[in-house]
């Protein structure tokens, strides 16, 4: 009986330890939220969430500290993570009614506008948030249906990045800016001939949505014109036919290799391995690719052709405010600080893309490191080849997946260019129709 009691007591003690442990954590958070309530009377607490890499985290944290130093009554709690899981976490928080006050978004921000997550910033435009130094196109890029929902944090442009060492090794001149599709093809044939087997002129990027966008824009069309899909089967067929020819000529890697090397990040890239001379990428990726290899990289605009300019300057990231925030004005003030303050923008540099403000750009250019300067110079060159951007196709991720599928079918000889073109067009239609 005694032993039984001992056992009961010991079990009870263990149970109590656990209860205490969980009681503790709830106490902690309770006192935490109390603090928040008290603080709300005098002090304002905001939450900001972004994705990025270590360099971006460090820079953003420094800017937050700077802002808190200048506005002692506002404190900003940073929640930062890598790109993996960012959207899952954000969506869960929004669904759970716990969205952060300041949210970093990409070109998918219209999805969040339609869900009612984002605050309309128009009441603060001009008085709290000042975009007078911004390029017109960049300032309005955060507008949807004539209302401002996000402030642009940086822009990029697509371009061809080439390995200058590899081309030198082949004994050739670097490709010249503004070359046409035909010239690129001729140049590539010569290059592959000189480099020998196992080397390729450029990567198979027949499934790169924005590259297709550039191609159809050259004939005055668009992937999406704001309401509808605005390219046709013939465009897609000629696009796929062209890549099929490249593959047959051996200037792009065969299907098996292309399937293994995605060329979207330095971690699986034949460019980084020194086997492929040219890859199309966004200007903000140049730095990451360069840091992963020793051969020097250079960037030139996309192939020219057609009747119109195909390129455009793409705003890459936006900062928006949650519709449910209790401190609208403070959040807006922070955004303004983030994009205009000389000190803050100097810290942030061009990590999120080239800043929209001309004043900031000039200041940054003056003391940029060589690789960043290359990005700046490239963006100037790209701007000359650009015309106004189109609205991003809704649900573009779905089309992206379908396009990959269609392109791979051709590469592996499972479908003709026309069949794949039909398939790609159909899924583009489906993706765009979903948003209506």
């Amino acid at each position, binding site marked *: 009986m005694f*032993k*039984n009691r001992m*056992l*009961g007591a010991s*079990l009870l003690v*263990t149970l109590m330890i*656990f209860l205490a*442990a*969980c009681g503790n*954590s*709830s106490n*902690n*958070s*309770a006192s*935490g939220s109390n603090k928040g309530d008290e603080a709300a009377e005098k002090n304002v607490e905001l*939450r900001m969430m972004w*994705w*990025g*890499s*270590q*360099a*971006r*985290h*460090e820079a953003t*944290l420094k800017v937050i500290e700077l802002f808190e130093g200048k506005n002692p009554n506002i404190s900003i*709690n*940073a*929640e*930062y*993570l*890598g*790109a*993996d*899981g960012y959207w*899952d*976490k954000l969506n*869960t*928080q929004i*669904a*759970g*009614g*716990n969205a952060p006050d300041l949210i970093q978004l990409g070109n998918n921000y219209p999805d969040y506008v339609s869900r009612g997550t984002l605050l309309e910033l128009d009441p603060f435009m001009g008085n709290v948030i000042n975009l007078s130094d911004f390029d017109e196109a960049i300032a309005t890029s955060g507008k949807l249906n004539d209302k401002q929902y996000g402030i642009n944090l940086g822009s990029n442009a697509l371009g061809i990045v080439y390995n200058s060492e590899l081309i030198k090794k082949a004994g050739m001149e670097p490709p010249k800016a503004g070359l046409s599709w035909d010239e690129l093809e001729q140049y590539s044939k010569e290059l592959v001939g000189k480099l020998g087997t196992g080397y390729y002129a450029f990567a198979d990027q027949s499934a790169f949505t924005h590259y297709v966008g550039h191609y159809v824009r050259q004939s005055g069309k668009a992937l999406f014109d704001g309401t509808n899909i605005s390219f046709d089967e013939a465009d897609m067929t000629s696009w796929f036919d062209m890549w099929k020819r490249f593959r047959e000529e051996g200037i792009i890697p065969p299907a098996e290799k292309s399937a293994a090397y995605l060329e*979207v*990040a*330095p*971690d*699986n*890239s034949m460019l*980084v*391995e*020194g086997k492929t001379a040219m890859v199309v990428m966004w200007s*903000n*990726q140049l*730095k*990451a690719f360069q*840091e*992963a*290899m*020793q051969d020097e990289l250079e960037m030139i605009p996309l192939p020219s052709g057609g009747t119109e300019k195909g390129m455009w300057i793409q705003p890459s990231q936006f900062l928006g405010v949650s519709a449910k925030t209790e401190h609208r004005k403070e959040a807006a003030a922070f955004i303004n600080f983030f994009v205009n303050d000389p000190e803050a923008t100097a810290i942030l540099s061009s*990590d999120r893309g080239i800043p929209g403000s001309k004043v900031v750009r000039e200041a940054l250019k003056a003391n940029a490191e060589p690789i960043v300067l290359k990005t700046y110079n490239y963006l100037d060159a790209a701007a000359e080849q650009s015309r106004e951007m189109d609205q991003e196709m809704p649900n573009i991720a779905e089309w992206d997946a379908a396009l990959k599928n269609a392109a791979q079918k051709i590469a592996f000889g499972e479908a003709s260019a026309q069949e794949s073109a039909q398939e790609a067009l159909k899924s583009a239609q489906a993706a765009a129709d979903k948003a209506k």
Partner: protein
Amino acid sequence: MNTTSRAQAMGTHLFVILLGLLMLYPIIWLVVSSFKPSYLIFSDLSIWPKEVTLDNYTKGWSGVSKSSFGTFIGNSIMLGLICVVGNLVSCSMAAYAFGRLNFSWKKVWFALMMVTIMLPHHVTVIPQYVLFFKMGWVDTFGPLFVPKLLATEAFFIFLMVQFIRGLPCDLDESATIDGCGTIQIYWRIILPLAFPALITTAIFTFIWTWDDFFSQLLYLNSPDHYTVPLGLRLFMDSSGESNWGPMFAMSVVSLIPALIIFFSLQRYFVEGIATTGIKG
């Protein structure tokens, strides 16, 4: 005869060793890459590094701004241990009840519990988040370990129920004759005999908690509370630049605790799998 069997044995060994090396290749590559300067990691894929550096380890360990990687490892170990103890205590009690005791609606409760194994995780994510948010537990470890104290891991309960059902009831009866009550039978008879099942539960709980990314991502907001999987993701940004070197280095470091636990308990672990009939 002797020489042929020896040659055969050597052949088998050689084959097994080569196969093992092949399987280990990704890990070996990870370890080697963690000592390479970052510009060589993907441009030079060979297993022998041209240059060796410890930079990745020092950089990785210092973590991101104010949070060092040590904090992340500390958080993960603490969380892992609490979850292990929680699961061991709560699941073994629940399993004992299902396996040995009689109570009304027992079959219904058991079926309900089994249903929770089959329920996809995604269904419960948002309601759970709302619940914990209303309780003010977001950004604490509460949502990650408190459920473990309440026997919510049906998989482990099931594993232990199966094990306990396999123990002869005669033992309980003789214990009753010797004067044991329900609790004493649990403590003195069932728990010691269910040791292999407990070890299996402990190892799985620890490794699953150690590797868990999504729920930790959801509930932990401030970097001071981050765990190893979240810390490792901080080095990566698929849309921009990733610090592969420090990430590989810290991946190597984060393998160590899991390896220690696994190897030190390996003997029981294999026994546990053999006797519970559950494969890892």
